[in-house]
């Protein structure tokens, strides 16, 4: 049976890890290196680092941050997102030490970007970020830079379900940062648009029963944690102890 993944998400603003609340408020937590080292030591399935300044300031990816993380000699797959504007940026992100990448804001400027990037680094490395807002059965992508919503309909549906993208990183914008806030119905309703496209699910996920419920959806590939994991090492130990071994890669702590 294919295992569901557990991912640790590290949100970086101004080179500091922050706790995010609905993409609006941010609470500083500490240096990214410390959080990455912890997640690697816990043998989490993957680490996702999202630099939210890079796109906003239009300065390109935070290569220095990726290189710093690469120097930590982690042995866990690293996914980077933030400021990737074109295939050249994407190539450099991988060369700097990431295994896969997330594109978001740039996709809204150029729907063909996944195709251009996958021609260089392969589609398996391309993840599309969709910060979602659901309103009356319709889905919108929240553009957190322009503070605008873009409805997922028409040709956008085709671009999202493209073969040039490997997985979708979905965030429940309203419930981001809220304890036990993620509403699994979003996954069910989104299937109308994305069918069985594999999802990484993020935003307000904190409880074992909630994780199990989310992982029961066949199209969920990875359940992602941010704030709740960054605070407490004990949380991850609790997850490992209580999650079913046939569904997750339950590992021992190492090092």
């Amino acid at each position, binding site marked *: *049976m*294919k*295992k569901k*993944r557990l991912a640790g998400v590290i949100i970086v603003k101004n080179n500091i890890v922050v706790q995010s609340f609905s993409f609006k408020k941010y609470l500083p937590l500490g240096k990214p290196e410390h959080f990455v080292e912890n997640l690697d030591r816990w*043998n989490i*399935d993957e680490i996702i680092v999202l630099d939210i300044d890079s796109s906003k300031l239009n300065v390109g990816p935070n290569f220095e941050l990726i*290189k710093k993380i*690469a*120097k930590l*000699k*982690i*042995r*866990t*797959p*690293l996914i980077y997102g933030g400021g990737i504007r074109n295939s050249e940026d994407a*190539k450099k992100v*991988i*060369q*700097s*030490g*990431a*295994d*896969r990448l997330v594109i978001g804001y740039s996709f809204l400027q150029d729907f063909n970007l996944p195709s251009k990037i*996958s*021609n*260089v*680094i*392969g*589609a*398996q*490395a391309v993840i599309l970020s969709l910060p979602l807002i659901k309103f009356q059965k319709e889905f919108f992508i929240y553009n957190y830079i322009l503070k605008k919503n873009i409805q997922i309909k028409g040709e956008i549906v085709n671009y999202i379900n493209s073969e040039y993208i*490997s*997985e979708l990183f979905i965030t429940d914008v309203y419930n981001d940062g809220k304890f036990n806030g993620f509403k699994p119905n979003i996954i069910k309703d989104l299937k109308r648009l994305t069918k069985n496209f*594999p999802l990484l699910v993020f935003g307000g996920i904190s409880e074992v029963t909630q994780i199990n419920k989310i992982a029961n959806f066949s199209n969920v*590939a*990875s359940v992602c944690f941010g704030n709740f994991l960054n605070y407490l090492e004990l949380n991850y130990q609790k997850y490992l102890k209580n999650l079913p071994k046939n569904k997750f*890669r339950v*590992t021992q702590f*190492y090092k």
Partner: protein
Amino acid sequence: MRNNKIVIVDYGVGNLASLINLLSKFEFEITISNKKNVLKNADCIILPGVGNFTEAIKNLKKDKIFLYLKNLILSGKPTIGICLGMQILFQSSEESLKEIGLGVLSGKIIKLKKKNIGWFKIFSKKRDQYFKKINNKLFYFNHSYGFKDVKNSCESYIKDLYPYLAIVKNKNVLGIQFHPEKSQYEGENFLKNILLDNNFIKKVH
């Protein structure tokens, strides 16, 4: 620890940092290069992963090492290909209509129905020293293309994705579809055991 000279071929694609980090833990002498004389003097050549088949072959040709590398591997140089690095060892790939592979392994890489991303158990047919240890262990895969004909050629296949190949070994050539450098303890151990194996790596000078 034996000081094997490992040369990671730099063909412009891939995350070399992870591989270097892992190998440096074992105290191997590691060089990143695409120079013929450096490749010639290596105890083992590693072709790393992540990228696109066409881009990889184009870069090898641009660096004028495509044919040299092919002949070097055919002459018996111990070679390890990881992920895309494994795929370019084959004759061709559905990922590329324009470029053919190095052709040191027989067969064609095909497009997977679903991209294979995550941690998968592998199963080894062979029971020799390093393959028996990895049976039913989970390794990190990340690929959209793969090799399917596992009946004759493979050492290990992906248990959850039979009949797709996980490891292929043919004399001096070892192809690994997963990422040992990103498979935590199991991956680290697997790669270390191979690189320290006298039967696989023979000193060339």
